[in-house]
């Protein structure tokens, strides 16, 4: 469970424990959950098909203007679906320190 940074006094907790800022989980770094491996894309092989993007449970890929996909270390939990599903085998799971 994530620690709550802002321990508000009871009067400041939003009504009924509602969360007023839409999509603020973006602040939460799930990249810390990776254990030892991360994906790396070989752009020579990449055909910009977007499978890594659409099959990512953590929305850790974003398309750039040139059509390639950027990997986001902040959210990637290292599951490896992108590497397995890449039709061109352009994505490898490599040791985190590499």
């Amino acid at each position: 469970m994530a620690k709550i940074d802002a321990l508000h006094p009871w009067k400041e907790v939003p009504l009924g424990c509602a969360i007023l800022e839409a999509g603020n989980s973006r602040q939460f770094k799930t990249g810390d959950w990776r254990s030892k491996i991360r994906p790396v894309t070989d752009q020579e092989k990449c055909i910009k098909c977007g499978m890594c993007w659409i099959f990512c449970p953590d929305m850790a890929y974003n398309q750039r203007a040139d059509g390639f996909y950027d990997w986001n270390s902040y959210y990637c939990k290292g599951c490896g679906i992108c590497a397995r599903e890449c039709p061109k085998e352009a994505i490898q799971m490599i040791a985190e320190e590499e």
Partner: protein
Amino acid sequence: MPIQKGMEVSIAVSEAVKLANVDVISAYPITPQTHIVEHLSELVADGELKAAFIPVESEHSALSAAVGAAAVGARAYTATSSQGLALMHEIMFVASSMRIPLVMTVVNRALSAPINIWNDLSDIMAQRDCGWVQLFAINGQEAVDLTLQAFKIAEDPRVLLPVAVNLDGFVLSHVIEPIELPDQEAVDRFLPVFKPTLRLDPDQPVSMGAFGSPEVFIEVKKQVEEALIGSQKVAAEVWKDFGDIFGRTYKPVESYKAKGAEILLVTMGSITETAMTAVDSMREKGRKVGLIHIRLWRPFPFKEFFQAIREAKCLAVVDRALVPGGVGGPVGLEIKSALFEKKERPYVAEFVAGLGGRDLTVEVFAEMAAKAERYAKTQKEMRYEMIGVREK
């Protein structure tokens, strides 16, 4: 000017709901709540009430749908009784802690088993701790007035809690009484359109019903508790407004011939009027008996209660529910605990009576008053006494 007309109390309550201009009604039929929702569905079917009527498949869904409707900013209403209320139990707590303002009529009926369709308060007393504002009507006019007031209390930005208006099954819900239905124009002045503080709106997305870890859970509960306690002040303002517009006044605790009374009967709900008759006849016989009835059960109006009993030597508390294995009934339990802080306190004789529709006649009230007086004299040690149980 509105005039008094004889009408069935259930019908009058549904007319009050119509006057409150509700947007969504979700309901599941259960005796003795049925006449209320039947009439509401007729009003919707005839276009006299512009609202959605959701004929849900259970009471659990009735309350759930009402919560959903209120969450998008609709004025939501439901009604139930007994087993239906028990089925709602889970969502009762959710509705208050999510700060969902809605109104529910509880037509009080005994809880099974044995299955029994008649009146007592065991259904609502099992929901005592659910965080709702809980009001009790003693007659049809009160049932109508409290229904209108309930919306205003619930929707006040300082409250934002669900409100239960209780009326006794059959003995109140199904009787014909002279009732004055207010004018729509006056109701609109008293109760403007609901303006939600928070709602599900695609232009301003919020998440409602979030997961609360130990770091926030207790703060949320504190908030609900403060809002519930604070609702008494709001209720007082609402009652003031109501009195100004409609000329009928309401208080959290009402007294009847309490001045100079040494013995006070303590009642809730429609038995109060029978108890008043008993008080009248006892007074005629020169006995110093009076009565108080509790209209606002949650939040409990401690100050007004102490004020109302300050001259009494003895309280005869009439509970229509049992706390099994405990000290008696819920009202007696509340009162005894409240009095514990007082050095000077009256003797409390606690009676559990009228369960499952057992008739509470004038004579039974006289019997309880007489017993209370006797027990007080000897300071008899008692937890409670169950009235009317056949021993042989």
